[in-house]
């Protein structure tokens, strides 16, 4: 008699460790340094995600798993943190990300006009990246600068009191940057 062995179990319960995209040397060292700051390695999750994103431009499924292994967590737990923050990108983005604030103050001060001008100029919709990979536009909730509304983040710079033309100007500059 042969024992009954489930055949499709493997498919359903595939070991995630086999799908890890290994951390590069820099990521490895930087994350290790972060871990030393906390009593629990899990506390370094956000920093680890930032480190990987800084290196790769975004955080892939394979890197989520690599971080999970490094911090003794499940990939699900890491992904839960990663997807909570809208500045951690779980899909590839352009070299420059323009985050356009769509919360109440900016809405009142002209968000809709900005969005229309920008999408028209770059010929992409919100959430999309230009074909040359230079710019991604993302809507974002309040950036905490309502007194300067309407506001956007262009790369890591905050741009205040935008008008359609000043925003288009910034977008053009971004597109001219080397990829």
């Amino acid at each position: 008699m042969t024992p009954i062995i489930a055949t499709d179990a493997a498919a359903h319960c595939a070991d995630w460790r086999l799908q890890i995209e290994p951390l590069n040397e820099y990521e490895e060292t930087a994350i290790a340094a972060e871990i030393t700051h906390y009593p629990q390695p899990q506390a370094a999750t956000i920093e680890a995600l930032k480190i990987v994103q800084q290196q790769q431009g975004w955080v892939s499924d394979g890197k989520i798993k690599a971080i999970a292994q490094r911090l003794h967590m499940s990939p699900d737990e890491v992904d839960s943190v990663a997807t909570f923050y809208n500045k951690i990108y779980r899909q590839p983005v352009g070299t420059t990300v323009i985050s356009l604030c769509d919360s109440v103050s900016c809405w009142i001060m002209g968000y809709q006009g900005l969005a229309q001008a920008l999408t028209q100029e770059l010929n992409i919709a919100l959430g999309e990246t230009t074909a040359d990979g230079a710019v991604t536009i993302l809507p974002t909730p309040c950036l905490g600068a309502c007194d300067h509304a309407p506001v956007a983040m262009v790369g890591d710079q905050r741009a205040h009191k935008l008008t359609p033309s000043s925003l288009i100007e910034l977008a053009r500059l971004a597109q001219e940057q080397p990829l």
Partner: protein
Amino acid sequence: MNATIDNLVTIYIDGSAYQVKAGGHLLEACLGLAQDLPYFCWHPALGSVGSCRQCAVQLYQDAEDQRGRMVMACMTPVAEGMRVSLSAPMASEFRQQCIEVTMANHPHDCPVCEEGGECHLQDMTLQSGHTQRRHKGHKKTYHNQDLGPCVGHEMNRCISCYRCVRFYQDYAGGDDLVVLGSRENVYFGRHQDGCLTSHFSGNLSEVCPTGVFYDKVVSDSYTRKWDLQSAPSICSHCSLGCNLSVGERQGQVKRVTNRYHSQVNGYFICDKGRYGFAHSNSDQRLYQAQVQPLGDTEKVSCDTLHGLDYVAQIMTELGAENVFGLGSPRASVEENFALQSLVGKANFYAGHNAAQGVIQTQVLHQLTQPNIYTPSLKQIEQADAIVIIGEDLLHTAPRMALSVRQASRNLGFAKAAAIGIPKWQDEPVRIHTQNQLSPVISVTSAATDLDDISSQCIHLAPSDMCNFAGALASAVEGQFDGSGLSAELNEQVQHSLALLAGAKRPLVISGASSQSPELIDLAAQLALALGRQSGSEAWLSYALEAANSMGLGLLNKDAKHMDDLALRLQQQTTPSALIVLQTDLFSLSTQAQALCENLRHLVVLDQLPSATSEHADVVIACASVFETEGTYVNNEGRAQRFFSVHDKLGRPDAWRSLTHLATMVTQAGHRSDTITQLASCTKFDDLCDLVSQQGGEFAHWCDVAPSAGFRIAGMKVPRQTHRASGRTSLYADENVSEAKQPEDVDSALGFTMEGTPINKPSALIPQVWSPGWNSNEAINKFQQEINGPLKGGEAGVRLLDTSPSLPLAEVAVIPSITLGAGQILAHTQNHLFASDRVSSLSSALKQRNTAISARLHPDTAAIMGLVDGDEVCVALAQTQWLLPLTVDASVAVDLLLLPNQYQAPISAGHLPAAVSLSAVTQEVN
């Protein structure tokens, strides 16, 4: 209600005064008073988080205050003199608006939703008064994940109450179901598609108030709750006796859900209990008797009565003294008792091997000692320090693992209580206590799923576990000198001692799976020592082998087992016959073949074929646990009754076959007292009366559940709901005229929809329903108070509490295992979803059986020249088993762990044993 006057407070709800328990919150108080107040995020076992805003009520400053302010009932502690209104327009309109927003994205797909008709969201929506959709915008749609064979996922139906993740992560310790995203865009699922790994994942379908997480097995062969014919049942898969509600349609068992018992399973069961029912519908079932007359080479099918007649002839021919019976820890007390009465006590043996037999008498002896108390699962949650020795609970007593997990939070609850945070304030308690857990010391042969909450994990071979337990017991008594123990073990004993020092309510858990009677004894010594140290009764709990191990033990106090029977048969000079009840001799002992050769006749009563039934010359097909009634005695000695869910097969009860047999044998001239008494039983109640006449632990047998004569307003308790449909056409393919509803003379339940759906005794609740409460949340209408006993009292009877100390039966000493040259000690590694015949028939569970392998410590593997992934050959006597090897640093050294797999060449019953182990050399050419 047990509350004493001084912990009651008076509150005013819409002008009327009520007395409620102090320390609780308003929602719980209102529901306890049978008020209807909607809620989503609060769950009686998970506590309050105040996130869904559905339980809003108006709270007033004092009698003068006419305006009041809105508060969430689930977040508001009750206080003396508190005045609230559920009906105030402000609160009721708010609740209505809340639902309206919640429903804005809801797909309204009730007709095709698995939850439809028993949906908490439907019930609450209606209760809130929101009946018209005004929102005209688009709805969000989500991708659904493949979460494996047991749990389905339909994310569009989500109302973001967070119950799923709070159950899955916080309560059950799972780490692969999370909330993803943020704001209005949250998603409850996994990082990627894949099978949920928690052994409690099935509870999601009951915890989720909507149809996001649903029971996939039910969905594959779907029936609405109201169309199910249901009966109260008891899980047959382990010794804990979780209460189940089992539903049937057209002769097929369709689903199993949790049935609340405040002391046993509470609101949750494990996935084996929920999905392990397919055996009853299996096409492998035995439906007919089979007889193989002497000299013939094949069995012929016949009806049960002819089969029994043949057995009666055998019994008459051989003489009663030459007919033996082998009972089963998987069969009910009544079935075992009937067999015992038929063959006589002297000829009755338990379907145990020697080690299991000795363990059985040890367990009974220890649990009836005057200073030892064995707690219920609910009480286990109150322990403030737990030592687990030799049980991988998740695989042998899963629901107990869940209780241990809750107990580990007691330190946190106490810390929070010290600064005035009540236990139900879920989030503040967690923030205040962070990772601090009550001590759990886990001593097992390899890593277990409880390691993440254990303060100390020690991985030892069973013989070292005995040394450890003995040393720790003497250390607790202050008599430990450490001699004879390795330095490492010494250190571990000291560490445990320190962890246990302040415990006020310590508990020791052990069990049958290490197959070591000595360990059972030492666990009791440790419990007694800890009891003395803490100045309280010693708490001790054993996980036993099967659903009715305890019941069989009580019937068979002299602990006679299969090996005794083998010896007796060897010495028999006259031809003999053996009647085997639901046991496969071949998986129990390597001596099965020899035993069968000493028999003239082998009679098997079973629901499924086995190696034993293949050897038998008579096979009597019998009912599954869902088609008959009976009683299991769980690991704490609680006798609990299960009832037949349907009678499509015409009730082939094993107990009834045995009473028929008694009648036939009596007519042929046998006149032993027990046979005559058994022959006089025509109904199940007659048999229960006989059992109770045994006295002792069985004296209150008739209190286990109401007898068949019980009526409410002159009517039986209906198994069908009052709105069951299709009654006239259900079996129209067989006969166009509607058949008469079958009668049930054996229980107070009827195969009918007539009768009252409420006020039932606790043991007779087929499924919960109350007007306006169609989901299982209706349970609050059946409880005396939230989380309290059911209104009809606790079902079942604890048998050991009043039992005098039971002496140790005189049993043969089990020879210790000696290792020959090149041999290694092999023990069993249990696998919840793979260990037995019954779960092998559930395709959902079979798919969740992880890949099997033998496991060894790296050092041991290195000495034997083996590496991870090697194909190895394990040899025990003539048997060989080829399987892959996993090298695992958590396994104790010098120990080989073999997976407990149904139909494996080496089964759990053959272990522990000395085996030889070698790499399978690949042929080179």
